[in-house]
């Protein structure tokens, strides 16, 4: 009988600013065009044994190409030791530990976690425990926080080519806070709630990178058949569907497993059946054959009717394996004839000779990997048969989960000797305590008092994670109302007009100039318009007459002239001036002038 569902979360949050072990920015604006090619060799773990995930990766024998970006240096290229730890990131991790009621370690000791899928150029990820044994209050009781780690993010995968994976170095080394809960979560809704509570703390603190993938969740799921780690759940809503998918999957596997016991998996043996498909009407197979692929077929012992029925989905389990080796998937006996494969089916049966209860399948692949696929399918079937389910899975947008690789073992972690251990002393603890994420109410009050803006504006700024922007804008402009207006109104309008989002990095140079030249709102907004909509360069912009305000005598003259054309009034003067010039002017001044002129 399946036991109680136990769910734990691992929430990963990228911190913005500088990278964890070097001085590179967490943001990239370009690639350099340089690439480096590398291989990673599975090394034995601490006990002289190879890590199962590593052995598995080794069997895929891929090489890796890294695209060098402007926010990477020799460290990301694995060409120099870490420079030391980013003190800001460390303080934030300590703050978060405190905020989540964790114990903070006395010494931070970095570890190397072996990862040889190429996502780390070093072949390991550097990670350290900062806090442990905390908790967070939820509507369904306390959920324990088992650990808070501060680690380096991995490379961003760009594409997977034949035997070669292309990664970008831009994300490698971004500080990643990993918050792991105990398996105290009882269901999908509870998982979402827990994630939301933790996520909001971070969001309010404004520490996370402003990027779509800045927060990623992993879900640890178990119902008695071992822990399944579901990687990279992007949205909160997906957590729920992933949990329910996985629960359903493990449930039917539990039902099916007695029937599979004792099957001779050795009979799963691919043979080249390409000749049967010379005149196939399946477009996908025909096209693949044209590209030099072959078609292989095998009996699937005892799997007839379990591959794709009302209850069972063994086909998917096997397709997951096929896909990992670059194959598009499989076509199996529960769905054939179909996909344009019709006439071939009798010939396939004749050739493969499935026995009673046997299914069969075909796959498009190459001689180079078909042996690996066969081995992997057999080993997978043995595990499923014995309900030995621990593994790493990946989630699709629809919440379905797919086999990714075996779970890594404890073998894969050993000390990072290049980084001396860091003493968490009182000054760090104090700084962290000061910096602790505040509640929304605390934040709102802080913003109001610091910047003198309305409660409503402050709340919007806080919940949209724009506190840091407000601080920087205000620092540059020395005008907190203008800074708030930019965030709440001017920039969103500009983005709408431009049809694209505008990052703080892009707007800073303008704001710096605005502060230096003491531009008022009109000029600044005009300048933003010219720069982002009319694409005027900063250089030209600063020289442009468009930004020279009409004021004093000049404004007066213009009003007098307008008055000749049509009688001006305090009411019509502003639109009248606007229709005449695109240069900025102060409406108050114009109205005052009209008042003076018209008496």
């Amino acid at each position, binding site marked *: 009988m399946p036991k109680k569902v136990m769910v734990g979360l691992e929430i990963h949050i990228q911190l913005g600013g500088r990278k964890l072990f070097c001085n590179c920015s967490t943001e990239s604006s370009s690639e350099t065009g340089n690439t480096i090619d590398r291989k990673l060799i599975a090394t034995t773990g601490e006990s*002289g044994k190879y890590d199962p995930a590593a052995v598995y990766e080794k069997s895929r024998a891929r090489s890796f190409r890294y695209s060098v970006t402007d926010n990477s240096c020799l460290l990301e290229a694995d060409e120099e030791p870490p420079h030391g730890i980013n003190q800001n990131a460390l303080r934030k991790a300590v703050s978060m530990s405190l905020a989540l009621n964790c114990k903070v370690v006395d010494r931070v000791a970095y570890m190397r976690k072996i990862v040889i899928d190429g996502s780390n150029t070093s072949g390991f990820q550097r990670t350290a425990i900062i806090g442990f044994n905390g908790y967070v209050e939820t509507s369904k009781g306390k959920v324990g926080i088992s650990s808070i780690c501060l680690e380096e993010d991995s490379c961003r995968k760009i594409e997977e080519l034949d035997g070669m994976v292309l990664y970008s170095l831009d994300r490698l080394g971004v500080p990643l806070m990993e918050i792991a809960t105990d398996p105290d979560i009882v269901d999908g809704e509870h998982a979402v709630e827990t994630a939301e509570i933790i996520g909001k703390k971070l969001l309010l603190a404004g520490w996370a990178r402003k990027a779509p993938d800045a927060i990623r969740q992993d879900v640890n799921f178990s119902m008695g058949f071992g822990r399944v780690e579901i990687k990279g759940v992007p949205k909160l809503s997906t957590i729920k569907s992933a949990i329910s998918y996985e629960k359903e999957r493990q449930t039917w596997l539990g039902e099916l497993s007695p029937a599979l016991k004792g099957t001779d998996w050795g009979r799963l043996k691919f043979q080249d059946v390409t000749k049967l498909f010379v005149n196939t009407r399946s477009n996908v197979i025909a096209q693949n054959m044209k590209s030099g692929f072959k078609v292989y077929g095998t009996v699937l012992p005892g799997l007839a009717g379990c591959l794709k029925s009302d209850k069972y989905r063994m086909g998917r389990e096997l397709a997951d394996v096929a896909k990992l080796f670059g194959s598009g998937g499989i076509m199996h006996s529960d769905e054939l004839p179909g996909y344009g494969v019709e006439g071939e089916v009798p010939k396939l049966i004749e050739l493969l000779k499935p026995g009673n209860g046997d299914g069969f399948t075909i796959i498009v692949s190459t001689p180079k990997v078909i042996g690996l696929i066969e081995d992997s399918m057999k080993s997978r079937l043995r595990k499923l048969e014995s309900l030995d389910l621990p593994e790493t899975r990946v989630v699709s947008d629809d919440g379905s989960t797919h086999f990714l690789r075996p779970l890594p073992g404890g073998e894969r972690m050993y000390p990072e000797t290049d980084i001396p251990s860091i003493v968490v002393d009182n000054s760090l603890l104090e700084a962290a305590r000061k910096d602790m994420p505040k509640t929304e109410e605390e934040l709102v009050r802080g913003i109001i008092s610091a910047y003198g803006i309305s409660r409503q504006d402050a709340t919007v700024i806080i919940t949209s994670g724009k506190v840091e922007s407000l601080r920087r804008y205000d620092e540059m402009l020395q005008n907190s109302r203008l800074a708030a207006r930019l965030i709440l109104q001017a920039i969103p309008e500009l983005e709408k007009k431009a049809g694209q989002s505008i990052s703080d990095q892009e707007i800073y140079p303008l704001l710096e100039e605005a502060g230096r030249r003491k531009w008022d709102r009109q000029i600044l907004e005009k300048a933003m318009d010219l720069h982002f909509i009319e694409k005027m360069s900063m250089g030209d912009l600063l020289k442009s007459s468009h930004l020279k305000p009409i004021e004093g005598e000049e404004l007066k003259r213009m009003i007098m002239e307008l008055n000749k054309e049509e009688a001006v009034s305090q009411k019509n003067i502003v639109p009248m001036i606007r229709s005449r010039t695109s240069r900025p002017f102060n409406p108050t001044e114009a109205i005052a002038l009209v008042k003076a002129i018209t008496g």
Partner: protein
Amino acid sequence: MNKITTGTLLEFTYKDTRLKGVLVSISEGNLNIKLQNGYNLLVPEKSISEIKATESVTKNSITEEKALALEGGPKRVAFIGTGGTIASRVDYITGAVKPVLNPSFLKESVSNLSKFTLDINLLEAVLSENITPEDWKLFARTTRDKLARNHGAVILHGTDTMSYTASALSFMFESLSGPVVLIGSQRSSDRPSSDAFLNLEAGLEFASSNFGEVGIAMHGNSSDNSVVFHRGVRARKMHSSRRDAFWSMGCEPIGKYENGKVALSTDARAQSDETVLSEKLETSVALVYFHPGLNAEDFAAMTAGKRATVIMGTGLGHTGSRLYPAIKEITGRGDHVLMTTQCLFGGVNMNVYSTGRELLGIGVIPLSNMLPEVAMIKAMHVLANYPEEDFRKTMLTNLRGEFLDREFLWEVH
């Protein structure tokens, strides 16, 4: 506390939390404990309580037989360990590094290992920064002995002073029956990304090729796609951490390993019928880095009693005139002053400026484009193995390719 030995599985309370882990080490009042999730925790001894030693776990340290040979394919290569990152394995619990005793574990990671039969001699490991001329003699003798029974030799060596050792062996071997390939690594071999594996793979191929030179086989660029062979007397470590730290100074490497194949330049010296070793070295040689703050007293102190002094001069081979009396003093007493350039690229040419001509006039020997470190080692060799009256002539003779005949126009950036 002290009764608990490392390797024991402990249960203990730390910050109100009950934890379980293996004691790895104790130092400076901190217990280093490996938790069950793989993380190490550094715990101040005084802040833990309720310790319970549950069981003693077998220590996972590497225990292996010292191997004398590794049977494989027909190509016989001597495999000589001297220490260094490449000749070591990491203890995955402490992160500490231990010398390799049996290279058989490399079978998994060095793809061509089975092509070779290795004749193994792992010398006592020494950090390469601690290597002295006495060690060079040991390495040379070991190599000579092994070459008598093998086609070539690979020498595992720390990268810090690898180019010095390569220069020294280059001069000490008057002739070689096969290649002598020094291999190091810039990323330790515990890392999946270590350069050790490809360097070893290439080093074995170089060592079984047909030529007779001492050199260094290391990555040619930052990618894992080629390893180059630098002539020992032209190699220099030019980056403290990159894989391609070694450069052939002012010339192309004389060999390249790429796509499983060795390509040798026509420049590579042919192997000889026998290996001849002249191991004597006169170590009384100074290497002086000239700079604006160096005064005559400093110079005198650095060169006192030395049989030869190699100056790393500025530009085309100059020093301030304030050193002339001290230089004259040295040449006057019959000892030697040799000039190289601290620019490292290009050579000295002491005819161009008056300073150079004056230095020539007081007996300084201009060493063209010989590298400063190589000049120092060559002086050690020449002083010990040639008649005194031939010193100048021999220093100016291109014995092992230490002089470049020509320097090509390459682009620097």
